[in-house]
């Protein structure tokens, strides 16, 4: 079969590169789209939290205790500090330094595992159950929603790390490392408003 | 094409006009019988005019556009059109739309203010509770200051702004009497209010307007606008205890109601039956309808309902009573006397 119309070849794209990193890469746009979706979900959950708070007589409702501070603060501190190795890993990927990037991904995996342990203590010190009242339900909703993102990123980072230690790193993988780091930035930044609402909302917000 | 389009349009105009004449009725926006309903009716009239003119303008422009020229697929398409006049048309069109919208928005705002302004201060004198699938009616007895309970039939005094409080006992319902007012939802956990200023005596009808489960269709409210004297008499009648049985059969009916299953859910003031799960039966025979409009209230329908409630209103909360035909007859006979 031939083209149904007369054509004139006016150029070639043969010389173009076969991969790109950061916002130039196609996968970055997919990641960005999913971050928009999840960011909207976080915003709406926060809106639901504030809405229920506005409807309630007191916050926390009389008889409920606010969550303990310690483990929430630990999680927040570690998460914010983890941005340093995370950004470093992304920079190594952009510079196509496979050795460093690989160790960076491993470090991020271990940090995420550690954060999951801290998250477990957070749940234990919320001082309320999801089924005792709407305050409990919406608090759990926010933290569970965020935890699913930590788990997703942990899974992704761990698989990426395992792959990097067993395969030769191509250009596409540097792009993957960068996108993975971008996603972790998102997970950490999304946590900050949730942390404020969950831990400070029942106190002075 | 334009001919056919306009023929269709005129068909609808005719259909519309023909049916509007027959649209008045006991449950119709077209027969407003209160201040509130009249304002809304007027607003609807204005909207119909503005929107009707807008629609005719669109159709006229479309007809002209279609009539002007014909083309063929083989023709060379126009890729650099000269649209100076159409550009001006677009601006004029935008101005028209904005003017029309301003008219409608201002009118809507004024009606909203009028509705809010008609609300008297002070406590409501009528409370309606939506329940699957009937209406609990409570009115304040001005004589005693106590709340008097009834069900599925509401009376309102003529020319008096009456604040009505609406609540729900289970799921969301919506309180709607089109001839008297727009609807207001009955939302669990909230108390809503609306005010009705009836201007016309007589019976009208309301119906639940928010889907509330299996028998949403059979949740009607019978409404009567009374003269102030009649209204006071109605309230006094509702406040009175249930009439005593007049004959032995009725007495047996009362005994069955008190000792049998009826009294576990229903209340008959002045008797031992005092449960509040189901409609108050103290003056049931004074009402025009049975089971929230499911049937006109007659001896026959009462007896049928007692024997087989699920046949008349499948899914209704009222269980089969298990009474023998003779017992059911006695109960119906007793209830028939409770005017």
């Amino acid at each position, binding site marked *: 079969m031939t*083209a149904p119309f007369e054509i004139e*070849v006016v150029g070639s794209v043969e010389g173009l590169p076969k991969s790109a990193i950061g916002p130039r890469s196609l996968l970055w746009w997919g990641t960005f789209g999913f971050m928009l979706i999840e960011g909207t979900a976080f915003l709406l959950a926060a809106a639901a939290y504030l809405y229920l708070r506005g409807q309630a007589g007191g916050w926390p409702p009389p008889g409920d205790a606010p969550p303990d501070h310690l483990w929430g603060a630990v999680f927040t501190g570690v998460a914010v500090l983890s941005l340093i190795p995370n950004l470093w890993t992304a920079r190594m990927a952009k510079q196509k330094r496979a050795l460093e990037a690989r160790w960076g991904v491993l470090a991020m995996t271990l940090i995420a595992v550690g954060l999951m342990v801290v998250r477990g203590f957070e749940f234990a010190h919320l001082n309320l159950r999801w089924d005792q009242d*709407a305050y409990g339900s919406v608090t759990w909703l926010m933290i569970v929603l965020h935890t699913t993102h930590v788990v997703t990123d942990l899974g992704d980072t761990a698989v990426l790390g395992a792959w990097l230690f067993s395969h030769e790193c191509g250009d596409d993988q540097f792009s993957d490392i960068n996108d993975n780091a971008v996603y972790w930035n998102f997970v950490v930044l999304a946590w900050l408003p949730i942390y404020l609402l969950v831990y400070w909302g029942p106190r002075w917000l | 094409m334009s001919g056919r389009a306009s023929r269709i349009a005129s068909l609808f105009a005719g259909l519309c006009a023909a049916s509007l004449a027959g649209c008045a009725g006991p449950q119709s926006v077209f027969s407003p019988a209160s201040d509130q309903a009249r304002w809304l009716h007027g607003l609807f009239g204005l909207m119909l005019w503005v929107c009707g003119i807008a629609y005719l303008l669109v159709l006229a422009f479309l007809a002209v556009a279609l009539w002007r020229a014909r083309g063929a697929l083989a023709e060379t398409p126009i890729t650099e059109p000269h649209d100076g006049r159409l550009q001006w048309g*677009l601006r004029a069109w935008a101005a028209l739309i904005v003017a029309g919208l301003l008219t409608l928005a201002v009118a809507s705002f004024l009606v909203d203010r009028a509705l809010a302004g008609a609300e008297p201060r002070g406590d409501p004198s009528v409370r309606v509770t939506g329940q699957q699938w009937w209406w609990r009616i409570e009115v304040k007895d001005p004589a005693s200051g106590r709340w008097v309970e009834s069900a599925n039939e509401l009376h309102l005094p003529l020319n008096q702004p009456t604040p009505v409080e609406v609540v729900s006992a289970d799921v969301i319902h919506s309180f709607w009497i*089109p001839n008297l007012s727009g*609807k207001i939802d009955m*939302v669990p956990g909230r108390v809503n209010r609306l005010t009705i200023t009836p201007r016309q005596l007589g019976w009208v009808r309301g119906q639940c307007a928010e889907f509330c489960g299996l028998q949403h269709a059979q949740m009607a409210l019978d409404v009567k606008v009374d003269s102030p004297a009649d209204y006071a008499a109605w309230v006094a009648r509702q406040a009175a205890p249930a009439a005593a049985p007049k004959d032995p059969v009725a007495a047996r009916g009362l005994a069955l109601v008190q000792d049998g299953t009826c009294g576990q859910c229903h209340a008959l003031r002045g008797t031992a039956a005092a449960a509040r799960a189901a409609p108050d039966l103290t003056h049931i025979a004074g009402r025009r309808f049975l089971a929230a409009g499911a049937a006109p209230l007659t001896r026959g329908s009462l007896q049928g309902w007692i024997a087989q409630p699920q046949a008349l209103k499948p899914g209704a909360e009222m269980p089969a009573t298990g009474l023998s035909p003779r017992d059911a007859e006695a109960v119906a006979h007793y209830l028939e006397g409770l005017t």
Partner: protein
Amino acid sequence: MTGAADIHAASDAERCARLAKTWGDAPGLWGFLTTTDHKKIAARYILVAMALLVLDGLLAVDMRLQLAFPAVKRLGPQGFNESFSLHGSSMLFLVSVPVMEAMAIWLVPLMLGQRNMAFPRLNAFSFWMYLGGVLMLWIPHIANVTPDLGWFEYAPLSGPNYAPGHRADVWAQMITFTEVAALAVSVNTFATIMRLRPPGMTLARLPIFLWSMLISALMTIFALPAVMLVTSMLITDRLVGTHFFDPAVGGDVLLFQHLFWFFGHPEVYLIFIPALGFVASIVETFSRRVGFGYVPVVLSLVSIGVLAFGLWVHHMFAVGLPKLGNSFYTAASMAIAVPTGLQIFCWIATIFGGKPVFRTPLLWVIGFIATFVIGGLSGLMTASAPLDLQLTDTYFVVAHLHYVLVGGAMFPLFGAFTFWYPKATGRVMSEAWGKVAFWLILGGFNLGFFPMHILGLMGMPRRIYTYSDAMGWGPLNIVVSIGSVIAAGGAAVFVANALFSYWRGAKAGPDPWGGATLEWATQSPPPAYNFDHIPVVDSLTPLWTQTGPRPVLEGLSLDHRELLLTSPVEAEPDYRQHSPTPSIWPLLAALATSAMFVGSIFSPWALVWGALPVGATITAWFWPKQPRRHLGDKP
């Protein structure tokens, strides 16, 4: 990799053969299950949605038989409630939105001169998830676990206290399925339109159709999380005893409505906006001129997309919110008439300034204008907070929403179906039968739905399975039922025409209508690789302005799947992206996800254990093919 000399040396026939081999699927069932061809995926979507459209239409006829006369005993309350719940849920979640997405999946790459979507495997996954949603609703229906609480399932009616059994769970999980699918498609469409445009197709030369698909993809991204959130809350209320909607312990039943309508109102527009894209393409082609008012139309689409998120409260005027807020939402809802009205002007002006050719697709657009405008105007009435108190939840709204969704979205869809049918099948649908179907559907629809306005004003509420003779609604209801039967007859003619033309229609050739955009610059039906070369674009209507030989680029591999990526605004060639090959993993991932969703109806632990196979299948899906590294190798 193919060497440069190799590409140049390849003859036309040889390069086509090599491209066909590279982009083709494996034969047989394996190919069917693994395909990532956007045309095949879209065709499946459209066939499933059309089949459901027929089923939902039959449900509608069934309901109209029940309501044709007072006190009919056919369906009974349970049967009727199931019918309208199934009709509404299926039409909105499984037909209208997915069919518009399917049109995007099929057309966007073709209109961009591309060989596939940005994320082909995600595309396959979307379809399988959508199919899962279809089965999630209809298999329980066969097993008599049909949702029976409407398409909105307000709490607390749908909560644990008033909806025992699993009917409400089925509804909520069906939504989870379809929203996962829809969100995946919208990310895919968004990335495709932003990065896979042909060189020269700057944002200022993006056809209106692609603008409409881009905007509705973005709207999907912002709107659908709300419904996923609210159905998740409903599921946890029912499953693990949370109290989001329980006022006794601090919950709030209106939270459900706020979240639902924050999604629900934009949803209407993300059905309607793609339809405007169809209208733009059809009007332009059959008026034989470039569309009037490109800039106003694009700005209108954008402003509809933005405004759509500021009106959800107009679905809640009767719940008793403060009056001041209601006035704001009245103004915002009315304001949307400005961009919509301007677009209507632009379509008519295009016909006015062109030379209309009265083929069936244009008839559908004329029917769209004449019908949709009635829905828009009745929308103004319902936008007024006080007047809406008389209109909402009555048959007036049933009329309004069908004028908007059928007149505003389905008529353009039928036009689009007729318009692009020859491109998809290589054959043209019968004009004569197309016109018969058009007049039957247009007439039947208006006869069926116009009287509903009056019924609503006469006090007939929505969602009632019966009414008494005394209400006086009988005569108009029989008219409505007759109209709906006529429209159903028209739909049957339409379907028969589509089926018959598939085998017997006149051969189409690449460009039967003299179209303006790139999809007409390839064969009908397009080969697996869509285009032999990369087209270059220099105007909004490239096929009309490029009168000489068409300029193209070459240089993409013939033996590996490659796409040309261009910059997001100016569409400058950027790099060559490897495009994934067919794979079974999207299907397996969808199966694993389905198992997790279905399981979570019964136990919250399904989310934990179900996540493991989901993770495993997704890992396999994305596993890159690179040589293994041996210990001690340099990185």
